[in-house]
Every structure is written in C-alpha cells, then in structure tokens.
C-alpha cells in the first residue's frame, strides 16, 4: 500500500512521540528516505497516535524516575570505596 505522505507529514508534525527538533529533522530527511523507511516511520507514528498518553505518560515518568534512582545508586557505588577489596 503506497505511503500517504500528507498523512505522514501530519503525523510527524503532531506526534507526541517526537520533540520539536526531531520533527524538523524527520521532515528534512523524509525526501531522501526509502519507501520501507517511510513506511516504518509511518507505522511507528501511527502506533504512537493510538497510545493513550494521559494514561501512559505517568507510567513512563515513573519508570524513568525509578531508573534514574537505580542509576544514582549505581553511580554512588562507583564513587564509593569497595566494601570487599
């Protein structure tokens, strides 16, 4: 099925999955991307459209925060002297 480029542009411009600078980047790249790449981009952004961001964003934030905590613990261990040397 041929790619609907207008739809894809609309997705890139509006997708919550992307940051503003990424939108520009994708729009600039689009002309030189192959059809399978465009299809892949379209599929990913279509899926992002279906995500319930109101529900998913808090889960995502919580997971990010928990991971940051684990990373901090890791880093502090790295900075501390070994307990069993």
């Amino acid at each position: 099925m041929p790619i609907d480029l207008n739809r894809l542009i609309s997705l890139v411009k509006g997708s919550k999955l992307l940051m503003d600078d990424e939108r520009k980047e994708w729009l600039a790249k689009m002309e030189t991307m192959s059809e399978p790449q465009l299809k892949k981009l379209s599929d990913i952004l279509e899926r992002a459209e279906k995500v319930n961001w109101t529900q998913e964003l808090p889960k995502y934030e919580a997971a990010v925060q928990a991971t940051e905590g684990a990373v901090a613990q890791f880093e502090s261990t790295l900075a501390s002297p070994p307990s069993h040397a």
Partner: protein
Amino acid sequence: MPDPDFRFIESFEGGKKTAKEKLDDLRKQIEELAPVVAPAAAPAAAPPAAPPAAPPAAPPAAPAESPEDKTKRETAIGRADDLKRRIPEIVEQVASRYKTARVPSEYEALKSALDARLNALNKTDISVLRTQIDQLKRDVSVAPAGPLHPKFEAAKAAVDAARADPTEAEVKDEMTPQEVALREQADAGMGFLKGTKWLFDLWINFQPVIKMFQKMKCMGDKACAQKVDEDAKALHDQFDAIHGTRDLRERFAKALKSHGLTVRQGNNDELALVRFKELEAKNPTMSRDAIVMAAATEYLKLAREAGKTTVTLYGILHGQKAAPSNTESLQREVPYEIKFGNDPKDKYPVHAKGDAIIIGGKTYKLKATGTGVIGKDLKFSQLDITKKPGVPPGTPDTYNLTVSISSHGMLGDKIVHSETLDGNVAVKQFLDDVKGKKIAYDVQETKVFGMAKGDAYRIEVA
C-alpha cells in the same frame, strides 16, 4: 492492462496527486514548519495499527496538549533518552572497576537491579516506540545511500532529466539588468577579496580580541562601547555581504551532514556564492535556509550517483556530477514535437488555458483553470520521462511517465512538460496516443536559472 513497456505511475491515473505535487506539498509544509506547533495530529482515515503493548482500543480524541503538558512530556522523553545513553557507559565503568576491586556478586546484584529498572522502563509503550524511532533514525543516518522513495525518485529524476548546465555566458544573457548588476557587484566584491581569504579568516578570528581592546580604550564609557559594538557589526555585515561563504558552507554542511556528505572549503567558493546570490535574487520569497535545503536536496542525488562523500559549494551549486544525464540518451530519437505557449515570440510565455500542445502534428488544447504564473495562479504539472531501471540507454520505448506538480523550483529546475490538474484530459489523450510507441524527448534549455515560484516559462520539446 497497461503496456508493461510504458507503464504509468499509479498516481497519475484517476486525477490523484502526482509525485511532484506530493513532493511540493512536502516542501511547502517543511517551509511552513517553523514555528512548529505540536497539536494532536488530526486523526485521518488511516488504517488502525496496534500499539506495541496493545492498549485495548484507540483512546478518544485527545484534547490539545497544553504547554505544561508538552514540557512534561518532552522532559520525560529527554530524561529517558539521557538514561539510555548513560546506562551502558555506567555499567561498563562499574564492570571494569569490579573486575579488579570488587566482589563480583555485589556487582551482579547491582546490575540486576538496574537491569530490572531499565527493563521496566523499556516495556512502557512510549519507550518501545521511542526505541523504534531511535533505531530508525540510526538506520536512516547510517545508510543514506539507499534508493529513494520511488515517488521522490521519479520527481527528482524529472528534474535531473531536464537539467542542463548552462554556461556562464548563457546565464548572463538571460539575466535581467538588475541581476546583471547584482552579479557584477558580487564579481567586484570577489575581485577585491580574491586571494585574500586568509585576511578574512584573520579578521574573523581576531575580531573578538580587537573589539575587546577597543572597548578597553573606552574606559567604561557606555556610549563609546556601544559604538564599538555597532561599528564591529557594520564591518562584519559588510564583510559578510561580500564574502559570506563561511556562513553558506556551514548551512550546506548542516543540511548534508546527516546524509554522510562533508562540505569542504573549495577554491571556487566565491563563485559559488555568486551563484547562490543569483538564486536568492530569483527566489525572493524563499528564506536562505529554504534555498539551501532545496539546493542540497537537489544535489544529493547527484552526489550519490557520483559516489561523492566530500563536496564543495561550487560542486553543489553548479550541480557537478560524474554520471551522465538521462537526457543524453533521450535525444537520439525524436518522433514527436511538443510545444507549449501560444506565442513563441514571448521569452517565457505563461502556460495557460487554451495553450496548445502539438504532438506529432496533432494539437491538443489545455484545459486550465485560468491564466497566471507558476505556483501562483495556476497549478502546473510536470510530465517526466524516466528510464525504467535496468533498461540500457537508447531504448526509448521503455520509459515510465509521471506527471507532477511544480509550485516552485530548485536549482537547475527545468519544467519538461506542464499541464494543470484540471487539464488531465489533454494529458491522458496525449498519453493514450503515445502509449506503446517509441518516444523520445529532447529538452530544450530554458535558460531559466533556478525556476522559482512566480516564474513564467517556455518549454519546447522537439
């Protein structure tokens, strides 16, 4: 069943949008991008696709995102991206440390805890999609030399096929008095600085120091310091106006970097700058970045054909390439004659309603929606003839035909054939007539440098 040796791009049939039209839509939207607003995309009639973690059903239409929500979302994405970058480095550091000084089990326990957190993060819908988009970004950046999307390929090939390389004299002959004056002015500027690029670089590099010393001499006098700033800016503007190649190189470098091309300083950067200024004069409604983007995009295919990875401004702006143009082989057989424009005396007659296309002695009238100029009053299409992949040159009965729109052109744009969307009857009739027959076109040089929105044009194919 279409003749396999004379297939038409599907988008031409049934009055759908053509490849070039889509390409122009894309460019237009890109130009309109700034400032980017990020409302929820209008849910068009797109086929539903299951999300990775498969939420049960599509949520109801989301309300427009508030600035606070946007910040919140982008912050979370940014933090997650940062984590994804940092975690492998940290794990590596710790692993290295534990190999020598720590108890492996302690390391394993910590790593397991971190892995579990990371795993949980990666399982969220948003993270899965972010990972996919990051991977795609890498794929696109790593393998930029793949075949273009066929529609873009066809549209770009149209430009290539029609592209000619007018000599400096030809270009100058076709320039308006204002353009000639601009060119001469630029030439004079280049002459002044020719061979003195080191002076320019020296001046640029030492400018902050010079300014600092000048300001010190002001002894705290604000008006004096302000004047130093103003003078420096004026001087900078003056230099940049004459010798803005650095800025131009940086802009092109930025535009081409993600495609694996490096823009290096060349011996003819000044000439390239002159050419760029001509383009700017021809495209007064386009921003400098938009022109850079158009020219860079246009050049990319040539660079790929030539297998180039390092290019110069001159190469980009003069369309240098190693591969021969498709036009060459198309010029061998000329069974048809096509002319546009009512009045051949006009330099660039506007293609309009009632204009005739003469094909092999038969005349077809165009059904346009009105009269006007490209991209302004009328929508023009472009009939492109591209060789089917794998067909050797000189076999003119195996070309694909596409019809596409050109609302504004790019560097070296030549319109091969035009037709309005509403005038597809004429084009279809033309296509029916030539279908299955041997056909070849010799694109006559239009001498229009950088076809621009608002340009009128004359094309002859004979």
